């Protein structure tokens, strides 16, 4: 055999061997490739279905196959392999034949000549996209799980509630920060141990173990309350829930628990209950009639006194419309006051007659104070009523007494006055001027006294509700004219001026309104110096007239302005102390105007004078 033959045979053999190797690589790999020694040129790549083929050498193979983000990684691995003349091996992303991104595990061996120089790289690569995606998904899931775990850790470690898990041998497999702190133990000392080993008293440990058994058996949560001493805070009360952790097979594999310290809540509940019991005892034991309403005005509580009064049980009373017990004359008035109080969310005050279980009416004085919810919103009223029947009867007796006394006082005055008048006639005939003057003065004093007695009578009748305003339509102009004539004839001490005005039709009690105007004029003359003016004006504006009486007298202090209309109130100072009166006149005026649905007030400046004003509704307008 010639050398050439031998050479040729060995080349054949080599080629054969190379082809066999390539066939082997092809059979086991998705991709085979050949690279120039410096990896600058890809000589050939057979990509199978994974990568597109490269038949002719190219120098832009990196752009063609390698994912842009992995370029650096690939460069580094290549440089390292070239430098060390060892196997290149890398997992990286590639551009697949279908244009999508895939993962490959690529290895290449350097082919060396006899001088030990690299003449070529021979590589094989496999498609690892499937595995890689699974791996990525797994990592993502793991990361998510880690994240969840961190989240739960944060939650369980941040809460003051105790959170823990038992396995089926009653051993703790988890305890949160709060529980470890409560125990005063570290994780290592506590986990894997049973209740008893973690410092629970035997009864307590046994109780929970039985409960764990029950949860495992029933697969249902258990809730309980337990009290035991805390290392630092003494005896505490805890509310706990054990919940089964059920696996895919439907079997309880663990028991998770949460425990909350409810000592403060319980304490507050106890305090509240005690306070409520205390107030209930107070309300129940009281002779005061106490009731409570909600924000709609419905009564939601009646105390014992109410039950006694009405002869009904609390349930009966709550279902019963208590306002049916109101006296017919007080029914409308009280309901109106009560409704207004609810609407305005304000306290109320009233007195009314209410029927007892015996069918007798008793007078009750009620004060309603406003109840509020903790957020400050209106919750209703608490009404406290007292029986004032005795007081009312006393008052009635007093009024009857005043009535009687006034009547008795007027009887001797009647004959006295008549005697004086007869005597005057006689002395007129005898021309005894001095006696005539004296008798005239006596007569004047008798009339003054009559006036005072009448005031008393008016007052007692007003209080017993006997003064009734009897409204009729009348002409205000005519009334003022009558008064004007009367005063022009009797008053010479002051300049009484009636300003002209446009007359109006008034719906009211002619006599009582005359009384009011007379009273105001007479007061004006009483509290101002002689020869000063007293002016009477009438202003007619929509729906009402305003009548005013103005003087230039002593005036009234600011603090007395509203009080002058109070009963028996008299302004006390040096200038007025010698002026007679009972403090009834203005009170009567105010009551009369009020009953007409009008207003009365005074404007005054000390030392300058006063103006009393009152209003009356004109015909066609509603008066109360």
């Amino acid at each position, binding site marked *: 055999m010639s050398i050439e033959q031998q050479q040729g045979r060995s080349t054949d053999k080599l080629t054969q061997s190379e082809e066999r190797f390539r066939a082997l690589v092809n059979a086991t790999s998705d991709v085979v490739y050949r690279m120039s020694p410096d990896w600058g040129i890809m000589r050939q790549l057979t990509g199978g279905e994974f990568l597109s083929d490269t038949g002719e050498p190219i120098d832009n193979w990196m752009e063609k196959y390698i994912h842009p983000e992995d370029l650096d990684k690939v460069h580094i691995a290549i440089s390292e392999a070239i430098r060390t003349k060892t196997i290149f091996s890398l997992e990286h992303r590639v551009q697949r034949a279908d244009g999508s991104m895939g993962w490959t595990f690529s290895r290449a061996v350097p082919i060396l000549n006899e001088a030990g120089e690299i003449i070529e790289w021979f590589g094989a690569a496999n498609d690892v996209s499937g595995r890689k995606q699974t791996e990525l998904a797994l990592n993502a899931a793991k990361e998510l799980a880690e994240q969840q775990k961190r989240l739960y850790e944060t939650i369980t470690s941040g809460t003051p509630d105790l959170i823990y898990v038992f396995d089926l041998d009653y051993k703790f497999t988890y305890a949160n920060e709060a529980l470890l702190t409560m125990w005063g133990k570290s994780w290592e000392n506590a986990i894997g141990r049973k209740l008893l080993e973690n410092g629970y008293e035997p009864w307590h440990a046994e109780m929970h173990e039985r409960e764990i058994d029950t949860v495992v058996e029933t697969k249902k949560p258990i809730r309980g309350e337990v009290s035991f001493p805390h290392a630092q805070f003494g005896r505490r009360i805890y509310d706990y829930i054990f919940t089964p952790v059920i696996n895919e097979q439907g079997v309880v594999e663990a028991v998770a628990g949460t425990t909350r310290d409810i000592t403060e809540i319980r304490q507050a509940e106890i305090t509240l209950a005690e306070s409520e019991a205390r107030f209930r005892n107070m309300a129940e034991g009281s002779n005061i009639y106490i009731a409570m309403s909600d924000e709609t005005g419905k009564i939601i509580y009646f105390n014992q006194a109410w039950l006694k009064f009405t002869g009904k049980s609390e349930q009966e009373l709550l279902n019963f419309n208590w306002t049916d017990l109101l006296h017919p004359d007080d029914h409308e008035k009280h309901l109106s006051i009560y409704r207004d109080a609810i609407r305005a969310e304000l306290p109320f005050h009233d007195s009314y007659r209410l029927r007892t279980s015996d069918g007798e009416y008793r007078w009750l004085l009620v004060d309603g104070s406003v109840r509020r919810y903790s957020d400050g919103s209106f919750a209703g009223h608490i009404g406290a009523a007292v029986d004032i029947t005795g007081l009312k009867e006393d008052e009635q007796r007093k009024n009857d007494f005043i009535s009687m006394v*006034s*009547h008795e006082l007027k009887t001797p*005055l*009647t*004959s006295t*006055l*008549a005697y004086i*008048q007869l005597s005057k006639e006689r002395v007129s005939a005898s021309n005894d001027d001095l006696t005539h003057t004296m008798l005239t003065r006596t007569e004047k004093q008798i009339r003054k006294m*009559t006036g005072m007695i*009448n005031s008393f009578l008016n007052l007692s009748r007003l209080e017993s509700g006997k003064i009734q305003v009897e409204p009729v339509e009348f002409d205000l102009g005519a009334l003022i004219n009558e008064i004007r004539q009367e005063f022009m004839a009797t008053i010479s001490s002051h300049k009484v001026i009636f300003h002209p005005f446009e007359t109006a039709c008034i719906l009211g009690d002619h006599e009582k309104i005359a009384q009011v105007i007379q009273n105001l004029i007479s007061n004006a003359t009483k509290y101002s110096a002689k020869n000063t003016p007293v002016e009477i004006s009438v202003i007619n504006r929509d729906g009402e007239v305003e009548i005013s009486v103005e003087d230039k007298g002593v005036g009234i202090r600011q603090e007395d302005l509203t009080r002058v209309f109070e009963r028996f109130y008299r302004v006390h100072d040096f200038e007025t102390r010698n002026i007679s009166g009972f403090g009834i006149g203005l009170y009567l005026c105010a009551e009369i105007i009020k009953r007409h649905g009008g207003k009365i007030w005074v404007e005054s400046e000390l030392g300058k004078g006063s103006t009393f004003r009152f209003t009356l509704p004109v015909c066609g307008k509603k008066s109360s």
Partner: protein
Amino acid sequence: MHKKTLLICDDDQDILDVLELAFKSHFHTICEADSLKVMDLLRTNRPDIVLVDLWMPFLSGDQLIRSIRRDEDLKELRVIAISASQTGKKVALTAGADSFIAKPFDLDELLMEIRSLSGETVA
């Protein structure tokens, strides 16, 4: 001129006295303090006008007026009620009085009222 007859009933003797003194020159006056006797007096004396106090014991003035109004022979009688009570006017008019004068009264005013109701023209 023929004097008209005026019957006055008041339980207060002083008032009876002074009214008699005041009116005797104008009327033939009959005074009675006991209201229970008045119905008989009215039947026997047939006065032209009656002055009745309201607040009297045993038989009150308004009861007396009602009796007069119920009586066939006396029901047309002119009656003036007098009283110190402030509710007197209402009580009197409801009972059937023709007029009401409050105590203490003005003698002249009372006289004018009596004259006008008795149909006597003022001289």
